């Protein structure tokens, strides 16, 4: 039997607030995978740590700001994007990442999401989509597949969900991709790419939520949801899909498309900083 190995230092100690561990996330949750990818990307980004700022909203993913050892702002529910907008405009040298959940960004913060994408402001958004409100115990949200169950939809969700990549593409984002928590290398690669990409960038990361979403939808644990991703995920490249097909329906035998859906170079928003000549 293998013996436990004790190490003095974790490779990410420098960038994660170790003294805040253990974190609040449930066993099987995927947020930690996304945060680890982000932490590694920050270290590899070539941007000095003090210029990285992370802003979160409310919810399970909203706790990321508190765990990253960077200047971090844990804002009100739905408002990380406008708070980040102020940070970025007041100090353009900052690399501002908004790290939050689907409920925070697409429901209560939905208006800010589409307007920030419309402006194409230089913000980096990572949206962990776990198809429900996890922190409050599994209510349906704007990304819950139709007919999936939640504590506020005991007879099945009667509403249609957002197709987030389609929404962001239509709103004007320069970069939109989607991965799941099995795609750890791809998500990190895209995080590194977004740091270099001017304008509004959006990475959707599908994550298991066994306690919130799984328990109501016959998904036994985090691993089973990861299996579901592995079976259904289909990698597509730009031009190989139509945006309507990016809808997700976990309850049906339908492919989940992942990949880079938008990668364009529309001018990033710059406020008027001096009177034009």
């Amino acid at each position, binding site marked *: 039997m293998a013996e436990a190995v004790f190490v003095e230092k974790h490779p990410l100690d420098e960038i994660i607030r170790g003294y805040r561990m253990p974190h609040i996330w449930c066993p099987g949750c995927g947020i930690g995978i996304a945060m680890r990818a982000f932490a590694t990307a920050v270290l590899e980004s070539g941007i000095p740590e003090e210029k990285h700022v992370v802003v979160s909203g409310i919810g399970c993913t909203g706790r990321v700001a508190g765990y990253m050892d960077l200047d971090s702002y*844990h804002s009100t529910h739905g408002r990380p994007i406008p708070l980040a907008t*102020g940070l970025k405009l*007041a100090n353009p040298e900052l690399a501002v990442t908004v790290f939050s959940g689907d409920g925070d960004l697409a429901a209560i913060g939905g208006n800010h999401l589409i307007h920030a994408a419309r402006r194409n402001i230089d913000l980096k958004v990572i949206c962990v989509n776990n198809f429900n409100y996890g922190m409050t115990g599994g209510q349906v949200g704007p990304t819950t597949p139709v007919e999936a169950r939640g504590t506020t939809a005991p007879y099945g969700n009667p509403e249609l969900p957002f197709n987030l990549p389609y929404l962001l593409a239509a709103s004007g984002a320069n970069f939109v991709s989607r991965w799941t928590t099995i795609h750890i290398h791809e998500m990190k690669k895209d995080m590194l790419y977004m740091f270099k990409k001017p304008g509004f960038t959006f990475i959707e990361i599908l994550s298991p939520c066994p306690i919130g979403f799984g328990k109501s939808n016959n998904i036994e644990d985090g691993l089973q949801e990861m299996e579901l991703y592995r079976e259904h995920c289909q990698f597509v490249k730009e031009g190989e899909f139509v945006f309507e097909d990016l809808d997700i329906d976990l309850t049906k035998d339908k492919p989940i498309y992942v990949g880079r859906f938008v990668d364009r170079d529309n001018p990033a928003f710059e406020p008027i900083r001096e009177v034009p000549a």
Partner: protein
Amino acid sequence: MSDKKVLTGKHFMHGDHACAEGALAAGCQFFAGYPITPSTEVAERLARRLPEVGGVFIQMEDELASMAAIIGGSAAGKRSMTATSGPGFSLMMENLGLAAFMEVPCVVVNIQRGGPSTGLPTAAGQGDVMQAKWGSHGDYSVVAYAPWSPQEIFDLTVLAFNVSDRYRVPALMMSDEVIGHMVERVEIPEPDKIPYWGRKRPDRNNGHTNGNGRFHTFKPDEDDLVPPMGFAGEGYKMHFTGLTHDESGIPDLSPDVHNDLTKRLIEKIDRNADDIIRFEEYSLDDAKIVVVSFGCTARSARRAVRDARAQGIPVGMLRLISLWPFPEKVVKDLAESADEFIVAEMNLGQMSREVERHVRRSVTGVHHGGGAMIRPETILDAIKEVAHG
């Protein structure tokens, strides 16, 4: 560039514009707002003027975003402001609480109109004075000023930035449509005559860090209870959260931490109240009747007091310039020497309750729901009725 920040000289100026110029003179470098009558001219002026002084203007998608954006701008180290009116002010309450709790300085201008709801978009009201104090949930403190002229909205906007920075507290400019849309003489001083109180900054050699050199973002100095403030991007690796937090900024939801933190937010303003409070007294020396008023209504009240004096009535006026913190000491002192209090305000009885609380007797209210100024003769009638029974 700096000469354009302060438009030194005598102007015939619109109140909303005077507010914008006060912000620029104070060094405001970031404005985020959403158009709403009767505050829109503040935004319009700053949209034109901020790029002249190297600042940034942005029109956000709503007032929720505007308030969040100025917290971000301020957290990055820039003096930041927004301007709105009733419906927008209601939306800003959410993040006003965040600014108070994260102790991020900011100035919020409310050119009050008649409410509730859409109410009277183009006409004055003073019905938001209790919302200013209590509008966001939970216990916290704010600072609020009520100017009575375009000159004073200029002066008080400068003061609001100074107080907000010095005490890490949101400062509210609780003006009204009459003052916002009034055009009057405004004298702007030389740049070196504009007072400036900066933010307290962390000093690594002054006990602001813990043993590991980590900056204690929310550790207050003992004398004034204000923690020094670091800005995003300076390398402190700070955490700001709307959750209850300990002195290092890390969430700590224990009852004692919560009680201590919320108490400090209130006590830091109470303890420094003499520095923050402003009021003006008119013919109060021998007054047996005191008229308390503020903002545009104080202009009518002043006239009424003068006319009543001419009729031999021993009346004076206390004009509240800071609404919050409330100048309770002067009011309590007046309660010793005067017999009767009249409160004139363009709402149905808000500040009259606060006055009543401090003078410990019933006061006479001259109240109107808003839409038009309370006339001097209405206040004069109230003074005469109180004087002659």
